């Protein structure tokens, strides 16, 4: 069976106004909320739903138009900035990849906005919350619609800013403020790589256009080292945003933000932007096997590292956070193994079931006032909708046939197998752990005895918890409806793999179709991964449900490993204690001190004197300062003249 449809793609019939409208609808909602809606949280919520809903509707229209054209490309470009030969365009580009991203971003965003009207109800900053969410949606849409790297970079940073604002949404909580800062700084480190790539590509081609860069990378005359450098720069940015090792440390802390934020930004959309970036410039990675190896192995390392940590977490939401990191590692591993389709397909399915899992954890929190799994248990009869939707999403994530995750994970493992059996082995190990930690979480949370949740602290003014944690209850419909809706794609999104529909659709976004061929389904890979996933579920069942083996005894057997996992491989400690505190802070302080002592006092001699008493000042004025300034001017003239004469003798 041929891997690709033979038909060439057409040009989608979408007018430019529609594309700009998609981008601007959330922006307009943002502007209205900022201008006056912040004080009316209910209206702000409706505005956010309206703005994002409009964008969502238009995104589906766009998707169908692109489907009619078999995933062809349409772009509209304007000159944004021109300085002689330097031209920066402002444009929108839609192809199969963009259309998929548009639909994912707006669908999840719309459901999250709806969910938020319940979850955030009564919070002091509700209006501000919806404003930030609209701005985020706008930035994310700008990122995926951009037709050049410069524009991508601008929106990339804007997305980072929104993430910062939303992680630190409860900024009076020191942990939230610190998490926001950490996320901002860690991702900036990766962005330096992206900036370097931006400068490099401008030096080489003088342009930023996606198509031009793709052609540049494919051109045999291009210097291979430059392509690799460019690819690694892009990947550095992607690694920061998609929380890849060693820049993954910010994402678990980002869970300090409100849970719907985690679902939208730190699970379904923004963190996937790194994967999107690599996919957007996939021909560059195709052209550089070295960069591809880096991507694949960093991805595999991340997947394994995060999955092992997820197995020992006690915080419900952090299990999900590490799971996200691990799955993003999976996608990167696929990209590094030439699995462009597999990576985007997994991004697509993962967005739905992971958003569902996060929203489910928020629903649990809404009822118990905690994320600590040791304080939960037995929630199944109290929260049936949350339980069943969570179960569906977990099965999908674990990769159980025929749910969405099964299909996309399978494609990744197949690509990994073709590239390097070592990668495949890591992938299978991670599949086992994924099934294990998800069902560990389910059994601890929903089964067994209820342990009472977290009592409400009535003195905490900022708490907006209304329920009684002692009597857990199902969440209101605005929160359960998104869960139910998300369960549909969590089950069915994988079925687009049928007859290579998905592959054909997004392949035309590339200038030349991927050169590796073959069946996208191999029964051996599928069966083995399913068995492994079932084994993971079984292990969790044995330990946490039936307690045939207690978790304590396992922990004792593997004590050294467990300690390493629980301490997150000591990476946070390394960064914070050693790099930040010892090296950076002390070094910076010394530098500032030296600057103070030698440079500033030296240059602005006397400038500090202005603060002295009046009597002193007049004396200074008469006897020193003015003369010394005047002398400085005269000396400057003499020095410059002498320098010119000596540098360029007459």
């Amino acid at each position, binding site marked *: 069976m041929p891997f690709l449809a033979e038909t060439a793609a057409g040009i989608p019939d979408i007018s430019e106004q529609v594309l700009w409208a998609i981008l601007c609808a959330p922006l307009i909602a943002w502007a209205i909320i900022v201008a006056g809606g912040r004080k009316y949280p209910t209206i702000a919520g409706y505005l956010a739903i309206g703005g994002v809903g409009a964008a969502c509707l238009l995104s589906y229209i766009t998707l169908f138009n692109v489907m009619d054209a078999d995933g062809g490309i349409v772009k509209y470009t304007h000159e944004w900035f021109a300085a*002689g030969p330097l031209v920066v365009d402002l444009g929108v580009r839609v192809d199969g990849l963009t259309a998929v991203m548009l639909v994912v971003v707006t669908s999840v965003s719309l459901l999250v906005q709806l969910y938020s009207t319940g979850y955030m109800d009564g919070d002091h900053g509700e209006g501000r919350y919806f404003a930030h969410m609209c701005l985020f949606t706008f930035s994310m849409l700008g990122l995926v619609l951009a037709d050049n790297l410069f524009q991508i970079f601008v929106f990339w*940073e804007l997305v980072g800013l929104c993430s910062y604002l939303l992680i630190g949404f409860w900024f009076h909580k020191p942990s939230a403020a610190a998490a926001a800062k950490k996320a901002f700084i860690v991702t900036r480190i990766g962005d330096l790589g992206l900036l370097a790539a931006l400068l490099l590509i401008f030096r080489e081609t003088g342009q930023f256009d996606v198509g031009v860069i793709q052609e540049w990378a494919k051109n045999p005359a291009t210097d291979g080292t430059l392509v690799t450098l460019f690819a690694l720069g892009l990947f550095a940015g992607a690694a920061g945003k998609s929380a890849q090792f060693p820049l993954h440390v910010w994402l678990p802390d980002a869970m300090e933000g409100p849970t719907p934020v985690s679902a939208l930004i730190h699970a379904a959309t923004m963190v996937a932007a790194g994967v999107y970036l690599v996919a957007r410039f996939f021909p560059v990675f195709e052209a550089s096997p070295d960069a591809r190896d880096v991507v694949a192995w960093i991805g595999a390392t991340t997947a394994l590292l995060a999955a092992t940590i997820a197995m020992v977490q006690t915080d419900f939401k952090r299990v999900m956070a590490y799971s996200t990191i691990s799955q993003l590692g999976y996608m990167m591993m696929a990209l590094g193994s030439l699995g462009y389709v597999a990576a985007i397909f997994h991004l697509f399915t993962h967005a739905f079931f992971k958003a569902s899992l996060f929203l489910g954890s928020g629903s649990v929190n809404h009822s118990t006032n905690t994320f600590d799994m040791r304080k939960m248990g037995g929630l199944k009869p109290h929260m049936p909708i949350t339980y069943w939707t969570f179960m569906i999403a977990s099965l999908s994530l674990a990769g159980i046939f025929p749910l969405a995750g099964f299909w996309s994970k399978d494609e990744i493992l197949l690509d990994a197998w073709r590239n390097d059996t070592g990668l495949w082995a890591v992938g299978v190990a991670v599949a086992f752990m994924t099934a294990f930690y998800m069902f560990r979480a389910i059994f601890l949370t929903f089964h067994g005895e209820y342990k009472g949740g977290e009592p409400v602290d009535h003195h905490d003014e900022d708490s907006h918890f209304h329920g009684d944690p002692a009597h857990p209850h199902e969440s209101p419909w605005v929160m359960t409806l998104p869960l139910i809706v998300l369960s549909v794609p969590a089950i069915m999104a994988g079925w687009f793999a049928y007859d290579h529909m998905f592959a054909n659709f997004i392949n035309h976004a590339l200038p030349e179709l991927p050169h590796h061929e073959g069946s996208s389904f191999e029964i051996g890979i599928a069966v083995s991964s399913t068995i492994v996933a079932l084994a993971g579920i079984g292990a969790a069942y044995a330990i946490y449900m039936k307690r045939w083996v207690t978790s304590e005894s396992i922990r004792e057997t593997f004590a050294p490993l467990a300690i390493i996992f629980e301490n997150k491989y000591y990476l946070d400690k390394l960064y914070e204690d050693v790099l930040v505190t010892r090296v950076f802070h002390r070094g910076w302080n010394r530098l500032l001190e030296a600057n103070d002592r030698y440079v500033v006092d030296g240059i602005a001699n006397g*400038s500090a004197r*202005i603060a002295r008493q009046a009597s002193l000042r007049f004396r200074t*004025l008469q006897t020193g300062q*003015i003369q010394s300034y005047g002398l400085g*001017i005269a000396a400057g003239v003499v020095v410059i003249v002498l320098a010119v004469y000596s540098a360029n003798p007459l």
Partner: protein
Amino acid sequence: MSSIDIVGPQLAVLLAAGVVLLIDALLPQQRRLLPFVALVGLAGSAFWSLSWAGRADWHPDAFGGTLSLDQYALFFYFLFAGITATVVLASVDWVNREGRGQGEYYALVLTTCAGLMFLSAARDLITIFLALELSSIPQYILAGWGKDQKSSEAGLKYLLLGAIASALLLYGMALLYGVTGSTLLDDIAQTIQTDGESYRSVLILAMVLMIAGFGFKMSVVPFQMWVPDVYQGAPTPVAAFLSVGSKAAGFAVITRIFFIALPATFLSDDWAMIFAVIAAASMTIGNVAAIVQTDIKRMLGYSSIAQAGTFLIGLAAISVHGDEFTLGASGVLLYTAAYAFTNLGAFVAVIAISQKIGSDQIKDYAGMWKRSPFLTVALAFCLVSLTGIPPTAGFWAKLYIFNAGLRADLAWLVIVGVLNSVLSAYYYLAVVRQMFLGDAEDGMTIRTTPSIGMALGAATLGVLVFGIVPMPLISAAESAVEIFAR
């Protein structure tokens, strides 16, 4: 068309200055009208300029070639009218509180504006010098306008050092005249082109002396030392005026002189290198010193030195590519305009805040977000623009001028500029962080008066609009420097 029509924009401003003085003297109870009259005069001036903008019959040589009405001059007419209007609005509260000499204050501000306009249109050394003094003398007085000794000290310092700078400038002009026998820039250019090479040593001395004279106005190293003292001591609206108005005029006139009178390659190689070195020094010294400042006005003073260094990259960027000869010059104009909006916005926000909290200490800006979201967002936005982060006018201007530097093979200078931008982010964003994340000791909200709100709104709107749609400003700057094309 008479020559008088050409100086219409200046006359409108001077007329307003006269009316202001008359109202102050004859109708003292109507003093609240004074800023309004000043604004009307400035608006009239801008409309007069606008009426010229659409016309083709330029007067390149009015008044015997000493003044010219070209696109270059028009660009600055608009800019100075806008700057002065913002300064007038920002001054209203301060002047009302100060009480005395209200008419004189506005009249001096308007006279300065007229001087700046003349300066940007002058094509003759004597006219340039006269215009410079016309704009400088009112500023010396304004710097010492405050009642406290700090202000008097600032005024005196500015006057004495300004006199030294004028003397150096005059000396340089005299040498130039001595060599070429003319004070008209075009004639000077011709003489130098034909037989100037033998006088190169004298011409270099003349150049450096003029750079020193204008360098004082532009506040670039090593002629910058007065800046922090005077900015801190002078009344804040006046400091804002100095930091934007006289700096812009300095760049306007030095660009015109060097591009029209001294573009001969045996000179431009030298002056481009001088400007490049001064640019690197100004950026580095200004930023390094700004990092440790605790007083926001001193911080803005040092930052304005660093910013002036960035302007100078444009002057240093005499491109080796013939068709891009004016890329650096248009970069200077673009940067001037972007910087004018941005720095004015920052200063106006500082005026509004310091009036209410009675302090210029950066630590007292902590938690400003809760006390006045409008002022905080506006100030933060301007600081972001000064750093050069999109989507702001400052970002495009920096990009433009760095690009001009790269095209002129000044990669080292651009690298210094980029590193300095990173350095400047440290202290600019430290203020932003303090305002958003710090804890306010005093939770009292700060109300903004209408005049300050208008001034700040106009400035930040300019920063935002040109941050999103930069092309109109770029086209204006590029057509303004067409007069230099060769």
